[in-house]
């Protein structure tokens, strides 16, 4: 936890304020969030299932299950959702889940994509929050609707045709964040593998930035290259990878939210590896 504090402290040193709101770092510590909650200066978004939210959630949190967002994640619809949750343009948002940060990451990325820059991931999952004995509540929260503008941040988005056009360009790096065996079986040609399981540490959804940076260096990925992440289906695992890369200092990261599921459905080329029976090593 102490490492985490340092991480956000350094980020916050150069954070500016907008309408009195603080600008959040990529990852928000539990302490920081509790302080913001006390000041009523944050919107906490719980992306677990509705039933889980109803049982118990972090104080002041609103509920936005990932599945609900994915029903229609067109930018217009997302802005409508933000407005309904009472979120205005510069209000800080902290997102959390109970799925090692992957669902939260996908939601946070979507908010940033429609222009809500001031969005952070909670450093831990809800279970970890609870296991530390931090406060929770059961009453559902609703806030008066707000106005939110739509300013698409196209820089962080990639689709299949964009990936096709990036083929062969060495300064564009494609990262597959699925687990190793899925990656070995098939992946988009030229992709590198950084399994999402590499990204977390004990008690935190993302490792220390220095470690994440070292992983990139080991793979020879320069921080100033353009990086596109994808995963198996809806951009959750790759959403987490997106934030891990940002945390490691990568400037230009894009998410391919429709990921390998769409790629395959479109009949695009795949790289396969069939000369080893690696699945038979699995003990499950």
């Amino acid at each position: 936890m102490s490492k985490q504090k340092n991480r956000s402290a350094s980020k916050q040193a150069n954070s500016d304020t907008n309408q009195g709101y603080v600008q959040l770092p990529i990852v928000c510590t539990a302490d920081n969030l509790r302080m913001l909650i006390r000041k009523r200066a944050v919107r906490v978004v719980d992306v677990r299932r509705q039933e889980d939210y109803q049982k118990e959630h972090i104080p002041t949190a609103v509920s936005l299950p990932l599945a609900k967002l994915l029903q229609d994640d067109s930018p217009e619809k997302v802005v409508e959702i933000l407005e309904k949750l009472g979120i205005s343009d510069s209000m800080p948002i902290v997102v959390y889940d109970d799925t090692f940060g992957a669902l939260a990451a996908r939601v946070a990325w979507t908010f940033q994509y429609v222009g809500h820059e001031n969005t952070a991931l909670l450093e831990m999952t809800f279970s970890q929050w609870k296991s530390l004995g931090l406060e929770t509540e059961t009453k559902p929260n609703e806030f008066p609707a707000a106005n939110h503008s739509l300013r698409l941040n196209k820089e962080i988005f990639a689709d299949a045709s964009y990936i096709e056009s990036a083929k062969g360009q060495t300064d564009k790096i494609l990262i597959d964040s699925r687990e190793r065996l899925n990656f070995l079986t098939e992946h988009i040609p030229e992709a590198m593998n950084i399994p999402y399981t590499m990204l977390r540490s004990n008690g935190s959804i993302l490792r220390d930035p220095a470690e994440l940076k070292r992983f990139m260096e080991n793979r020879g990925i320069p921080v100033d290259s353009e990086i596109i992440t994808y995963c198996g289906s809806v951009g959750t695992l790759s959403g987490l990878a997106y934030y891990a890369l940002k945390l490691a200092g990568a400037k230009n990261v894009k998410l391919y939210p429709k990921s390998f599921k769409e790629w395959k459905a479109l009949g695009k080329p795949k790289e396969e590896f069939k000369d080893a029976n690696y699945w038979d090593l699995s003990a499950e």
Partner: protein
Amino acid sequence: MKKATMKEGIALPKTNPRWGLEEETENFAQKVKLFRQRKLSDDDFRRFRLQHGAYSSRLRMDYSMMRIKIPGGEVTPEQLEKIASLSEAFSIGSAHVSTRQNIQLHWVQLEDVSEVMRGLVEVGLTTREACGNTVRNVMCSPFAGTCADEAFDATPYSKAIARFFLRNTMCQNLPRKFKINFACCEKEKHSLVRIADIGLVPAIKDGARGFRVYLGGGLGAASFIGHLLEEFTPEDMLLSTCMATIRLFDRHGNRENMARNRMRYLVHETGWEKFQKMVLKERTAVQMTLAPATIKKFDVKAEEDTRQLPKAPRMTKLPMLNDQVTKSSPAYERWLHTNVLAQKQEGYFTVFVTLGAGDITASQLRVLANTIRELSVEGVARNTPQQNFAIRYVKGTDLRQFFDRLASAGLANPGALTIASAVGCSGTTSCNLAITNSHRLAKEVQKKFLELGLDTDDSLRDSTIKISGCPNSCGQHEIATIGFFGGASRVGGAMTPTYTMLLAGNASELGKAVMRVPAKRVVATILKIIELYKNERSSGETMSQWIDNVVKGQGKGTIKDAEGMKSALEQVIQLPTPEVDPDAYRDYGSDSRFNAKTARGECAA
């Protein structure tokens, strides 16, 4: 950090530190970068990589199999937990117990090898010299210290020898790999001392400690059984004997012919009597020149477990380990019968954890680690050459709880000490040299045997099944009652994965090749052999005795000899035509036509 639960009478949990070195981690990362930048040649990098315990994965130079040495087979719960998290982060979410007491992580990206090493160093472990032409992991019987027949506990000796030779300049560039195995006693079932370059059995003569030393054994394309150096080698000559042997091998071993450069060939070509004299002479030379500083580096005392383990409580009723069980016995009773042994320490038991060909998931490792902490008074695990774990010093009164814990993680399969616990090397799941999927086949055998309840049949209990994916014997097929090694042959006009079946191998005699069996007929063939045995046995004869007799040409029933066995099995190995059943011509885990592909071996044995 979890706190180790305090156990009565034990101040501190046992640790297993200082095998790994931090600087090797950084060094490895640097070398990978140089290699990627083409500033390091393929050959130089390969040598370096192997020296540090990373093989290239099957047909993919960009992935590694990392072999974690477990010297003496002893591993702490903290180390198991670390291996669990490293396997999740950088490998495939499971770890694999090898037949030489290593724990292997497969399909690690080359760029992450240094990260895995970093994690291992944190808990004291290393992959250094787990591969390459070095002294490999030093093995010790999982029974050492608990065996009723042993002269003394060989464990601290095995660890002291391992530590002495690790990074030792005298064995950084041997003609070939070098294997040292310690047994608990001469009677040890499935002992590996006679198939090692140096095999050692504790012995006592006139009240003094020493060893019976076997030299020049080993399995492979040509296998040999080790020779006894002398009746008794006193304890204070253990080090000089090992050093002398390694020095001779280093000086005279064949560095030209990759296929004949293990020490057993040197012994064979020199002739045992001459080699024996050379060793004794060299030992005298070593002893005269041994510097006190060198002797100090061989520190058995430092490896000893000095903790006083408390006596186990007296039980009013002992667990019924020896009761007859059947397939329909309650799961716990069946497990007791096939997975638990009494120790020489009264009231204590050793629990064997059944794995499938050595595979265990990260979450299972965590459950195991916690169970050890809470229910093993010794507080460590041993991995076994049968690719299982042995957890010792479990009180009889805790066995039920132990079982329940294992069951909660899917680890309570019976059969660990029986024929059902089939051994299988990695085969085509990750090995460059593999022709067949021996790993999966071993799991298939186990699954079928447990389903049929063959683990409960005591007449099969002393038989073993071991499977290698090529003639290289990592699966130790030559010392199995029924052993198999993989190959490819034309059957009915189609290339087909097949296994050469060997019969009647054991700790001191190698199995004899009898016939080839298509991969998909192996399970049926073994079952047929069991059926034949049941029909043919004389009273009281176990299956391994029956097979021994048959192979020696002394069968008392209708099957007289190996030829007879072969004819009796002719029917069961037949395949339908490829048109009728194309699957019969494919290997396990594959849905396409069989195609034997291999790449340059890095001697994965």
